[in-house]
């Protein structure tokens, strides 16, 4: 077992003390550029890094830049692990629930890993960068979890989180913009990888993202991050491309039907009871296991997952909920109020009922969607109710009391433009 855990974060272009903070909130490798662009002076903390909520006064303006032109997002705070060695594929095939053997070199795969009771620990994207080399991303620290399970395999795992800067370029103009710099992106398929150079610096470009739109992510060694940012920024001038922050990202990802850890589900690792645990089937990821019958892997959680599928013991099914606009307007109208239609996502629990007033689920992310012109929610309902068009009710607080408003179940993602995969 070879373990290598080098934390290179302090080699970031701006050391934390430069910012004058006592707390060790770190800048990302792009901070000198993102901080110059952030007109609000406000930052969130994301995985111990400074992340812009928005760059100017309107998150919705940034949102529309992504849906109508393109936006640039600094996604560097993600955890990143390089997993390499002769047994890397074998190792990951046993660790990850989705079959990583279906991900050839030059491709990426959205995946999840489970505990032995079949509950989700986390989700992430794994890139197959070279025959014996993978790069796995995650939202929270997982180094110990993976490292401790290497055993006698010929695998090295390295935390490269701070060695790599990542810029997401998302939106209908992302291909036009990136192809000026990395021409091969024009032929890179959805979840494909390609190598190229930006401003003389080698980069890897993946056709991935968290917006549900046509989009790419650019991966660069941290010391070269600013050179790449500048190259990208120069190429973006005049194209209507804006930097966007977390607030716009959260809007985009709900429309895209992409779940957020600690909002739409929790890691089973740290849950106190099963109400805070979810299986991948419950989260709507059964598509990951279509080939399960023909796949002979022993992976963590396999038996529990098979039992759940065979015995139909799933408690929930993640679904898209669309609020009935007429009923919503009626409820607020009758109270003498202007029906609020707020684009900013609310990441809280919303109760879901059936027609008889029985609680049949709960929603975890809610917003007014500009591209759908409806209130939408990511929510889980009882599996027997997870049918397209199924009528349910969502509970709102109107004038300080609860009101139920009609809603119905739709297929996820809510917004799925052809260009995303075309």
């Amino acid at each position, binding site marked *: 077992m070879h373990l290598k855990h080098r934390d290179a974060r302090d080699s970031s272009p701006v050391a934390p003390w430069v910012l004058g903070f006592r707390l060790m909130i770190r800048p990302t490798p792009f901070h000198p550029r993102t901080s110059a662009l952030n007109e609000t002076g406000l930052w969130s903390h994301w995985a111990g890094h400074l992340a812009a909520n928005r760059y*100017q*006064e*309107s998150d*919705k*303006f940034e949102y*529309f830049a992504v*849906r*109508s*032109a393109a936006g640039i997002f600094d996604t560097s705070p993600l955890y990143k692990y390089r997993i390499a060695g002769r047994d890397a594929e074998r190792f990951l095939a046993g660790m990850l629930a989705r079959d990583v053997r279906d991900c050839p070199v030059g491709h990426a795969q959205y995946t999840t890993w489970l505990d032995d009771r079949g509950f989700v620990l986390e989700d992430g994207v794994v890139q197959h960068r070279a025959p014996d080399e993978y790069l796995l991303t995650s939202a929270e620290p997982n180094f110990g979890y993976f490292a401790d399970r290497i055993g006698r395999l010929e695998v090295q795992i390295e935390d490269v989180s701070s060695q790599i800067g990542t810029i997401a370029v998302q939106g209908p*103009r992302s291909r036009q913009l990136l192809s000026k710099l990395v021409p091969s992106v024009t032929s890179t398929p959805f979840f494909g990888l390609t190598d190229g150079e930006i401003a003389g610096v080698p980069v890897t470009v993946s056709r991935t993202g968290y917006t549900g739109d046509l989009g790419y992510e650019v991966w660069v060694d941290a010391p070269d991050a600013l050179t790449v940012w500048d190259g990208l920024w120069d190429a973006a*001038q*005049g*194209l*209507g491309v804006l930097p966007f922050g977390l607030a716009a990202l959260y809007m985009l990802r709900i429309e895209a039907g992409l779940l957020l850890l600690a909002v739409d589900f929790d890691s089973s690792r740290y849950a106190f009871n099963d109400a805070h645990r979810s299986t991948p089937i419950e989260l709507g990821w059964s598509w990951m296991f279509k080939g399960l019958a023909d796949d002979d892997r022993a992976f963590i959680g396999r038996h529990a997952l098979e039992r759940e599928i065979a015995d139909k013991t799933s408690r929930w099914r993640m679904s898209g909920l669309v609020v009935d*606009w*007429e009923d919503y307007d009626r409820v607020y109208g009758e109270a003498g109020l*202007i*029906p*609020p*239609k*707020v*684009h900013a996502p609310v990441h809280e629990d919303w109760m879901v009922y059936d027609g008889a007033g029985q609680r049949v689920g709960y929603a975890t992310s809610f917003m*007014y969607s*500009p*591209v*759908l*012109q*409806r209130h939408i929610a990511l929510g889980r309902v009882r599996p027997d109710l997870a049918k397209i068009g199924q009528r349910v009710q969502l509970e709102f607080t109107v004038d300080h009391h609860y009101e139920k408003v009609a809603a119905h179940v739709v297929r996820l993602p809510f917004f799925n433009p052809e260009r995303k995969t075309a």
Partner: protein
Amino acid sequence: MSSEPYDAIVIGGGHNGLVNGAYLARGGLRTLILEQREVVGGAAITEELRPGFWFTTFSYALSLLRPQIIHELELTKHGFMPLLMSSKFAPTPEGEYLWFTQHHDQNLREIERISPHDADAYEQYGHDMDRVCQAIKPLLDMVPPDPFSDDPEELLALAGIGSRLRSLDKRTFHNAIRLLTGSAADFLDDYFESDLLKGWMASSGIIGSKVGPRSQGSGLVLLYHSLGESDGEFGSWAFHKGGNGGFTQVLARAAEAFGAEIRLGSTVERVLTREGQATGVALADGTELHAKVVVSALDPRRTFLELVDPRELPDDLVETVRRMKFQGVSSKVNFALSGTPRYPALGDGSDMFRGFLNIAPSMDYLERAYDAAKYGWYSPEPYIDGAIQSTIDPDMAPPGQHVMSCFVQYTPYQLRESDWDAERERLGDTVQSTLERYFPGFGDLVLQREVVTPLDIERTIGLSEGNIFAGELLAPQMFFLRPAPGWSQYRTPIQGYYQCGSGTHPGGCVMGAPGRLAAGQILKDGGTAHD
């Protein structure tokens, strides 16, 4: 089953014709929409007048569009996208300005900079307007009841409106009446002291109308322009992806998805009738098309005086339509620009251009601009509602370059001792030199200019006298009086012949309500579908 291929023919592929045709097709009628031009949209079109530069020739922004239409016609499936205008900018030539963003607190600070008094006045004004709009808005979605009818249903509907008004608090009731009958200036003077702020707010009270801010009637225009919403936000305006032409393309796709057929390049010469019943239309090329329902999306003058023989109609209707005020006063001057204009007080900043740019530094400025129109001439210093739309939708212009739409007032249709063919380019020069005073060097940015006078509006898309609302938004021609007493319910004296244009209730702007409400009436009347 009728042997004719169509149940309904809609004359005019403007937004109301498209909305109407889409609803009729959705209701099961085999529907044909006829458009004289080679592009649908009527006044809501976007044209590539210079390679890579897309001009919103006429109509340029969206707010009053009824949300029901978005949902019922499933417009989001066809690309409906109301892009946010994140800024509003009202400059003076002296370097004073108001710049509103999406940040509420910052906007109040911006007003405080000019007048501490007006900051909370602005809050109060916003709240009071919201309350009035809340009360008035339901009228936009109802067929006006007929006060001349003895039908109990009509009387009940009238009583319903009465009881709704009675349920308002006194302040809201009074504000509503003041807006409906008074001037924008009187209303705004009660709230604000800042000239710049008042000029800005009063601008919404004159748009498209031959009134000054101090004229009775401008209150109604002000209220009308506040009744909309965008993206669920009360009173806010948006810029549709691809301009308003982008929006009407969405409408056309929706109409076709419901089964409506759209035929371009088809000018309707007249409506065919037999024994008081519409039977179809005759095209300019002599083709006759038959259907039991014929709907005119054109303005009342064309609907009643040109498409049919007025002798087939009651005298009082003909007389009222002849008297109807059109008197267009608005023009468009559209520019292709090589860069963004420079406002010296804000250095090289350009973020303030992400939305409306209001050239009306005071109420007096607007009133003086109106003075010229009263005497048959165009304003030497016009009111301009500008929008550099490519700052919001970069697909409208090549990288780094821009299109700028300028709505200009006042430019009366009837000029004293001249005509618009003679004055067109001089109007363009007037607008350009006005902008030059605010943005020195503006002229150097101009790559191309398009001047669209009321005469051009009438010639190109057929709106009488170039009135953008298909008939003035004046109280005597509103609600159950639009377009004429007794004929506000989208029917006409000719059986099977209907009206659905902006000359019917509720009126103009890209609202779609006339098209939708008319379709409801046609389908209620049986639509003579598949009989």
